[in-house]
């Protein structure tokens, strides 16, 4: 054993000395493998954190949340909850062992001068016990601080406490103002606690008590993704039993609250982990598939480099064998070099990966759950190290097997010092075909993924978003006369020289507001459609063309809104076909008829899904909420804006002020990250494949130089020789391309069959991907031949 270690150490030392002299070879291997391992580590890290790493809560596997369903006709959609339905489940004691109600909220921390916006969760006391929330200071909520107890208490996150209260130890018991309410601070949560991302990747700064009245009849009007219940079922109760029974109960309640005809709700419990993972699993798996393909390309690349090196070392190994070296000695000899190279690649790869994770943290957090405190996980380091060692071992073994014992003897008997060893044509062709095949698979897969991303990033909005911004005024404790104030505010804003036009808006047109039922003139359900509330000027401010009819009648009195509706072109087409919709009647609320006065162009606002809510309807806005869509002429000074707001009422302040550009860039962030990651993988893969093909062919041309020299000296034209070699090289390239297409098609079918993953066959993307691959292969082929053939033939004949 000791002797083996001593021999291994000896070979390691020798290998290092040899590699230091082989700068180009070593750097090629390290660059190829380092970049690949970096990409692998980033993707494995993401996959591990998103899919495999246990949740950091006690008995986390037994935690579940609700995924409520809403059915209209025969269409069912999930993900929206009703607080009253959750409250009904909360009160159940047949199936539920413990449950915490949760509602996503947010507001300004007015206690602090800068009044920062803080995301918060409204929770019942059970939340803290279910998640085993560790407290740094104070306590969590008491049992008498739950729903309907009308207590206003708050627990702050460690970061909020440090950043906004400078870690003040006397904060406990202090009454602070948050979102226009006064809360008593009762505790601080320990640093590093990561709350489950049920409502997305928001940094939660505080947890507040449910102080408002909630009952089984109170909140049926609000269907939202911002409410849920964290639950642990009684022992022996299955998810199916609870879902069936409680789902039925909440539907009965829903129907008793005057539900719209032909609609129903249901309750489906899912594990907390499933809820957190959500749709991100698909992207994580796709990235993993991509990076595995990249790894295969890199390994094919490396095989060529290792085989060439083995051929180069054949004479040395022949001498070793003649002196009594056994297979294991020769393996250790080859493996030592591989281990140094792959070890260095691993070290460099991990440094790059760690840097990439820091660099991408904010974007990754936006796209994937569980990315808080992101760093290279121990799991990733171990997995990538094991993969690296396995690659080194396999390539060493295969390189050794490539050495032909007969040629070893020939080498020893050769009187010269040159080596006649080379990689066989079959192996070279196999390497080229493999690389082309993997690169084609990756390129085809990526083109399918990139096509929708590209479409999303380049889709025109349908209106001019330049110089547009949305502001919202916080009215503080002023509750009376808001429509009148909003009219005054609009006039004051219009008077500012920096503002070109303004429209009162319930929310920004990018958000619209919510999805709402729409009924026809007979109160028959037409479906759920995106709805927004604005005043009559919104279309001119946006620059959104009115195709037919007009905008709303000017809204001068908040209590006397015109009974009018403007609909989008797509909605008009669905409802009325070629008929003019003007003068038709629709209902947003049953028995409250609205007359269609206008049809506007569709707009395309990017969202997390791939499609667009092209069907929209617009309702007149009373001004009860102080939101404004503005088209500016220049920079809008914040102090000046605040002064304008204060001039209307001293208690008013600016709650939100941002450009459409910022919002749009936020909405496209996911697409940009997906595109960026995919594109990086593709570029890396194509670069590696090109380098690989170039490497194999330049080796091949080198081996054929003498033969090519003879052809040239006999009068063959340069282009004839180039064409000859290219023709021969293209056989494995076309075989690789064909295999790649077949593998991609099989992968696609498997994906559909096993995971119901639907790929829209984009023939355009497909047809674009193939010429790219062929062009890269052509270039990689042409370059080494060109260099060999353009030189004077005598050089080739003399092997100079």
């Amino acid at each position, binding site marked *: 054993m000791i002797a083996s270690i001593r021999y291994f150490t*000896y070979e390691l030392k020798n290998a290092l000395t040899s590699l230091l002299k082989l700068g180009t070879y070593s750097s090629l291997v390290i660059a190829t493998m380092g970049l690949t391992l970096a990409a692998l580590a980033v993707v494995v890290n993401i996959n591990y954190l998103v899919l495999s790493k246990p949740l950091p809560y006690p008995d986390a596997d037994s935690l579940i949340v609700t995924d409520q369903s809403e059915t209209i006709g025969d269409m069912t959609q999930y993900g929206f909850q009703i607080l009253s339905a959750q409250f009904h489940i909360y009160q159940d004691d047949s199936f539920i062992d413990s449950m915490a109600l949760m509602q996503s909220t947010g507001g300004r921390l007015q206690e602090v001068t800068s009044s920062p916006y803080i995301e918060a969760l409204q929770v019942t006391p059970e939340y803290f016990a279910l998640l085993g929330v560790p407290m740094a200071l104070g306590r969590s909520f008491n049992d008498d601080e739950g729903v309907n107890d009308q207590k206003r208490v708050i627990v702050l996150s460690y970061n909020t406490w440090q950043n906004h209260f400078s870690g003040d130890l006397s904060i406990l018991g202090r009454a602070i103002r948050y979102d226009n309410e006064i809360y008593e601070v009762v505790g601080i949560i320990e640093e590093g606690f990561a709350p489950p991302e049920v409502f997305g990747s928001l940094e939660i700064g505080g947890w507040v008590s449910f102080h408002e009245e909630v009952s089984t009849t109170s909140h049926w009007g609000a269907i939202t993704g911002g409410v849920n219940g964290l639950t642990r079922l009684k022992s022996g109760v299955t998810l199916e039993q609870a879902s069936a029974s409680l789902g039925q109960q909440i539907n009965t309640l829903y129907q008793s609250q005057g539900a719209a005809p032909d609609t129903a709700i249901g309750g489906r419990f899912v594990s907390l982990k499933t809820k957190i993972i959500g749709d991100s699993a698909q992207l994580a798996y796709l990235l993993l598939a991509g990076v595995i393909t990249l790894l295969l390309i890199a390994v094919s690349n490396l095989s060529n480099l290792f085989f060439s090196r083995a051929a180069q070392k054949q004479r040395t190994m*022949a001498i070793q064998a*003649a*002196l*009594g070296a056994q297979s294991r000695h020769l393996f250790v000899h080859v493996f030592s070099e591989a281990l140094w190279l792959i070890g260095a690649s691993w070290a460099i790869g991990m440094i790059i990966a760690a840097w990439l994770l820091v660099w991408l943290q904010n974007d990754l957090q936006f796209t994937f759950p569980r990315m808080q405190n992101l760093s290279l996980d121990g799991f990733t380091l171990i997995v990538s190290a094991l993969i690296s060692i396995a690659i080194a071992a396999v390539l060493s073994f295969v390189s050794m097997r490539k050495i032909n014992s007969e040629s070893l*003897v020939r080498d*020893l008997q050769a009187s010269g010092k040159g080596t006649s060893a080379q990689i066989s044509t079959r192996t070279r062709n196999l390497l080229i075909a493999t690389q082309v095949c993997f690169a084609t698979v990756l390129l085809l897969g990526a083109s399918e993924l990139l096509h929708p991303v590209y479409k999303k990033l380049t889709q025109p909005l349908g209106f001019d978003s330049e110089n547009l911004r949305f502001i919202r005024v916080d009215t503080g404790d002023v509750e009376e006369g808001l429509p009148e104030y909003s009219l005054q505010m609009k006039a004051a804003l219009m008077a500012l020289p920096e503002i070109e036009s303004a429209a009162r808006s319930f929310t920004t047109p990018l958000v619209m507001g919510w999805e709402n039922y729409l009924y026809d003139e007979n109160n028959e359900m037409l479906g759920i459609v995106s709805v927004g509330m604005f005043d009559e000027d919104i279309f001119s401010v946006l620059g959104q063309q009115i195709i037919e009819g007009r905008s709303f009648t000017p809204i001068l009195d908040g209590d006397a809104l015109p009974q009018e509706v403007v609909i989008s072109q797509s909605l008009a087409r669905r409802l009325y076909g070629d008929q003019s919709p003007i003068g038709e009647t629709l209902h947003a609320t049953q028995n409250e008829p609205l007359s269609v006065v206008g049809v506007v162009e569709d707009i395309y606002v990017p969202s997390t899904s791939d499609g667009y809510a092209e069907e929209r309807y617009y309702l007149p806005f009373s001004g009860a909420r102080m939101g404004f869509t503005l088209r500016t002429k220049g920079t809008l000074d914040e102090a000046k804006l605040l002064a304008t707001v204060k001039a209307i009422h001293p208690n008013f302040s600016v709650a939100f002020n941002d450009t459409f550009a910022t919002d749009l860039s936020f909405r496209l962030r996911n697409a940009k990250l997906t595109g960026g990651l995919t594109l990086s993988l593709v570029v890396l893969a194509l670069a590696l494949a090109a380098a690989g093909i170039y490497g194999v062919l330049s080796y091949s041309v080198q081996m054929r130089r003498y033969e090519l020299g003879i052809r040239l000296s006999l009068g063959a034209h340069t282009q004839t020789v180039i064409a000859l070699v290219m023709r021969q090289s293209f056989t494995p390239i076309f075989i690789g391309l064909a295999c790649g297409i077949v593998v991609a098609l099989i992968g696609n079918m498997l994906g559909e069959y096993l995971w119901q993953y639907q790929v829209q066959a984009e023939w355009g993307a497909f047809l674009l991907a193939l010429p790219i691959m062929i062009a890269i292969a052509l270039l990689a082929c042409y370059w080494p031949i060109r260099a060999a053939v353009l030189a004077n033939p005598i050089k080739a004949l003399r092997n100079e």
Partner: protein
Amino acid sequence: MSRKSKVKLTNITKKFVTNEMETRALQGVNLEIFDGEYVSISGPSGCGKSTLLTILGLLDTPTSGEYIIGGHDVSNLTVNQRASIRNKHIGFVFQSFNLIDELSVYDNIALPLRYRQDALTNSEIEERVKSSLAKVDMSHRTQHKPNQLSGGQQQRIAIARALVNSPDVLLVDEPTGNLDSKNGDLVMKLLQSLNDNGTTICMVTHDPRYADMASTQLHLLDGVMNESLHMELAV
């Protein structure tokens, strides 16, 4: 007093088959080399000298026949078993020296010791390398790389490497083929003195002048050993 047999080949044949054409490189070769003997095998180019030497060195296997070295029948061994026997019983000297350019003189000579089944300590290795170097009078060049030495010096290092494991027999393949006459003579003188000190040597050469230096001179022609001469000299 009967001499101890080091190597014995009985009825060895070697055929090469290429493109449905059969070439008989060796045809029923019998050869026995005794302890302390200096055997030369000579013959024209293509007569089978090198083939015989690769079979003797266990670098290749015969098509038929029996081969005994150091008392072991090595006719049917695995690759690794052959490597072990080669390491323990055979020392090789090649025409092209076959030193590893990346390794120092010291490491080149130590190489066979590192492949031994019974591993040696570093001090034991050092002692044996130094002793071998002393035998070829090259003790002053341990840290040089092979390409920093002259051809004659490189061949002396190759001989030191062949001796380092105290083999039963030294197989020498055209030792002067890559050397000028002066260096060639020096190497042959060295081999002679090694034999005088008890080293068993089997040398392949086409140079009659050097073949004559051996105590036993064998001739190969078209794969057939001239046994009469062998017997005559052996007696």
